[in-house]
């Protein structure tokens, strides 16, 4: 084992992993996070905490991670490159590790333009791949990014990265994934999948390059709440693809929420059959309480 992560254990043992995701609140109380922890405990292997997602200020992902950890849920802290330079990132990574965090997900982060502080200055001192390399260097080379030794107590993270099969240029996406693996990614969580054909094509290329043997890929699943929400994502969210047929399917039924859960459940069952998919990452945005039901219906509860 490279890290202290329970998620690493599940994945190396070859068990199909389930992770979920929560967004911390826009206030300073842990109440809601603790509620989520109690609700998700036993249903998933780890829970991501977003790092000021969509550039909206929220309770910090590390602090939220500590609340999950204290309530029996393994956190995956997300770290974006938007708000911190390499000095702050390494400092926070060590601090978080000292508080019991073992999983980190490294990502670029959404541009601040669409957040609640569009006047902010962004950092992007390092990019997501350089961040992965930095976390790996701290663990494996026992060095800070500058090359100086970390003489003792190196933070040993299980290193996650994201992959977006729905962004362009499509052919390059698998190659970029390979860059992330080479930089040190141990596991991958993909963007929410709605276009199964494109994902299958992506996985095909992944297998051709043998990447599924080098990294654990968790496929992203997002239950759609309504046809309207689906249409919104299709039109307005960069880097996502929602095929018309999914929206049409939602439109046809009265119980759209129920249909959304059904589609997500079916997707998970399909994803489970794809060679190289090591687990699923359920991103039920503002709908976190549905996660246990989805896990149950998809037949993934193995406790």
């Amino acid at each position, binding site marked *: 084992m490279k890290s202290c992560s329970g998620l690493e254990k599940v994945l190396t043992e070859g068990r199909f992993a389930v992770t979920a995701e929560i967004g911390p609140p826009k206030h300073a109380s842990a109440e809601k996070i603790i509620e989520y922890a109690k609700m998700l405990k036993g249903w998933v292997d780890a829970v991501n905490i977003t790092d000021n997602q969509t550039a909206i200020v929220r309770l910090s992902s590390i602090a939220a991670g500590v609340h999950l950890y204290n309530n029996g849920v393994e956190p995956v802290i997300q770290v974006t*490159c*938007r708000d911190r330079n*390499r000095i702050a990132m390494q400092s926070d990574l060590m601090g978080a590790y000292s508080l019991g965090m073992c999983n980190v997900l490294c*990502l*670029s*982060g*959404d*541009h601040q*333009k*669409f957040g609640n502080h569009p006047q902010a200055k*962004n950092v*992007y*001192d*390092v*990019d*997501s*791949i*350089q961040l992965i*390399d*930095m976390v790996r260097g701290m663990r494996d080379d026992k060095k800070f*990014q500058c090359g100086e030794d970390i003489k003792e107590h190196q933070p040993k993270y299980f290193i996650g990265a*994201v*992959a*977006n099969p*729905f*962004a*362009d*240029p499509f052919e*390059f996406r698998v*190659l*970029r994934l*390979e*860059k992330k693996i*080479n*930089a040190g990614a141990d596991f991958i969580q993909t*963007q929410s999948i709605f276009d199964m054909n494109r994902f299958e094509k992506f996985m095909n290329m992944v297998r051709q390059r043998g990447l599924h043997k080098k990294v654990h890929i968790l496929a992203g699943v997002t239950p759609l709440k309504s046809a309207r929400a689906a249409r919104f994502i299709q039109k307005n969210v*960069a*880097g996502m693809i929602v095929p018309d047929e999914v929206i049409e399917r939602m439109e046809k039924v009265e119980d759209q929420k129920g249909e959304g859960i059904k589609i997500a459940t079916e997707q998970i069952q399909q994803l489970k059959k794809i060679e190289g998919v090591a687990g699923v990452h359920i991103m039920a945005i503002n709908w976190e309480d549905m996660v246990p039901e989805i896990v149950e219906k998809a037949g993934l509860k193995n406790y």
Partner: protein
Amino acid sequence: MIIAEPKPIQEVAEYIKEYHKVLVVGCGGCTSVCLSGGETEADILATSLRILRKKEGQKLETVVTTATRQCEPEFIDGLKELVDEAEAVISLGCGVGVQFLAERFQEKWVLPALNTILAGGTVQPGQWEERCGLCGDCQLHLTGGICPVIRCAKSIQNGPCGGSQNGVCEISTEMPCAWQLIYEKLTVLNRLDLMLAYRPAKDWSKERSGGPRKMKREDAAL
């Protein structure tokens, strides 16, 4: 070249509200080429300021002149007499011009008439775009001549990020994704290997993060 745009006239009028005689200095360099700070623009600004003042029932005297380039001491030394006669100076140079004037004429307020925005060029008449981030460590040989430092909204070195779709950047459908452009160019050049290679964290100390920068050339020194 440096591209600058005029500040709103009210803003400039506000800067000089306590003065009655100002010198308006155009620049014959970059800001003249981008039609923001040349002779003509200096004249228009002076006239507009006088009209605004007149509307308030007050008087403003303006003297207009244009320096060949405000960023060269030899071209601004000659302004001394005019500067002495004025209560304040308005510069239509870029940020460099304003500062060169302010440094040269210590006892005077030198006020900016422009917002300096970018280092770029003319893409079509009346349209200028940013091309250089002045990072002090040019990597264009690795990116097919397209700069990710300034043209990617996140200055990503190993792009494109997950927000790149249909050729445009996640921040605007009007803005091409720099890394998509790099990808296309390197494909044409048959050098995609450059994009596969990991680019380590950039040394930003050569950029303004390292403090104000200097360049010296012994052979050009007097």
